[in-house]
């Protein structure tokens, strides 16, 4: 089942076209990566999907219901972490969590559980103003997942975070996804997308340039070459087919092989191939 979909959605800000006939769908239970450089329309797409903006044209559905008809109960099943999420700076970490637990009618026991998962269990009494950037981002994530959302929107969740915090957030996201949460993730970090996403879509100038499973995209855009590194340091290359590889191996005449690599591009290289643009 598609948990959300967009059909021919367009949106302009003045004369600037932000989205141009955008169409895609996300299946329930998957982590869907929405990839593109800054200004490609990723945040605009999240804003449309969460009713912070209205489309100029096209159809948007969330939980199978046209977004204009979505009631507030449906929004209780959504969690959002965006670049414009804020925390109450004069309140402690625990007080911030308690506020959102009370707003959603959740028991206080859930707060400790979530703070533990995002690694903020010992920071409950710290005033939010004094948190580091990484801790603040984890607090915002904790607030977004407090109510165990069915659908979670994450806009660049690990941008500018240290590797340890990023790894902790990735662990939590996988755990949530295992528990059934669908995650819509925007990022321009291809490594993050490769590691987390079941499917990705490349967004360029307000349109989807390519979409698919990362591993399949890598095969599709592979150079069809194999590189063989020999133990004596020499590197040999051949086409990726049985005949060429057989001929290469036969010609080695007893020299040792150190490694064999198929020449698969990473997602960043595929993006460049597809759009002619770099991601950053």
């Amino acid at each position, binding site marked *: 089942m598609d948990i959300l979909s967009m059909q021919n959605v367009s949106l302009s800000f003045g004369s600037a076209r932000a989205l141009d006939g955008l169409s895609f769908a996300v299946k329930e239970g998957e982590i869907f990566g929405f990839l593109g450089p800054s200004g490609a329309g990723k945040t605009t797409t999240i804003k449309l999907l969460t009713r912070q903006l209205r489309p100029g044209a096209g159809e948007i559905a969330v939980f199978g219901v046209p977004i204009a008809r979505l009631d507030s109960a449906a929004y209780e099943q959504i969690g959002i972490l965006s670049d414009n*999420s*804020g925390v109450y700076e004069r309140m402690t970490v625990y007080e911030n969590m308690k506020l959102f637990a009370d*707003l959603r009618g959740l028991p206080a026991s859930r707060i400790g559980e979530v703070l533990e998962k995002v690694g903020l269990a010992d920071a409950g009494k710290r005033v939010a103003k004094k948190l580091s950037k990484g801790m603040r981002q984890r607090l915002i994530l904790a607030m977004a997942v407090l109510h165990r959302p069915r659908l979670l929107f994450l806009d660049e969740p690990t941008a500018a975070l240290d590797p340890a915090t990023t790894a902790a957030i990735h662990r939590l996201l996988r755990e949530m996804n295992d528990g059934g949460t669908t995650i819509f993730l925007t990022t321009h970090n291809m490594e993050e997308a490769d590691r987390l996403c079941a499917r990705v879509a490349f967004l360029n100038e307000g349109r989807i340039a390519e979409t698919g499973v990362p591993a399949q995209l890598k095969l599709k855009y592979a150079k069809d070459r194999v590189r063989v590194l020999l133990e004596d340091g020499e590197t040999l290359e051949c086409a990726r087919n049985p005949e060429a590889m057989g001929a290469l191996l036969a010609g080695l005449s007893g020299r040792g092989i150190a490694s064999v690599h198929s020449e698969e591009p990473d997602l960043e290289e595929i993006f460049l191939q597809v759009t002619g643009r770099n991601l950053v």
Partner: protein
Amino acid sequence: MKKHLRVLRTLFVKDIVDMFKNPNVLLMLALPLIFIVIYQFVDLGMSPAYLLMLGVMMNLCLTPLSVLGMMIAEEKEKNTMRTLMLCNVTGGEFLAAKTLAVLAGTLLVDTVLFFLTGFSPAQLPVFLLVCTAGSITMLLLGGLTGIVCRDQTSTGTIAGPLALVFMLPTMFAGMGGVLQKVASFVPTTATADLMFLGLGHQSWMGANVLWDVAVLAAWTAGSAVLFALAFRKKGVDN
């Protein structure tokens, strides 16, 4: 309904606590009290009723007008309002909770002023009733300021001149002439007149009372229309 009440209660408690943690708001709440204590200390020979009127006018122009606008703008500036909206809080719930919290703060300061100037507890209910009626216009204009402004700094640009417009004519109405004429059209003067009436145990019947009530009603209706237009056009999270 249950959800609305839960959200309203939670936000109201949050806003009340936050008012007393925010140094800018605390200063605004304390200013009328400091002002009256200093006036009592230097003893300028003002009657307790006039002293109380000065404190209440200052409070009316600072708390509901400036503080409410500032508190709304701060939530925009720090993106907490957006976080609330994305947590299924409506603009109406957000504004209602803040308005009630600021009204509570206004009435708390009014009560302290009332006792500081030495009035009897028996007169408190009528006094608070008049203060509440006078606060409604200011709360609506404070809410309007918060809707229109993007940050706390810009609220001062609107609330500052508005506060002077409402405070000065009332304070200097006693000088007569044009000032007295102008003062009779502002809601703060109507509030002050009704307050004197309540504190002096005078009759509530008469042309002056009707005029003051009409002025308050007209300002409340006008502010409500302006507020509704701004809310409809810009929403709370613009």
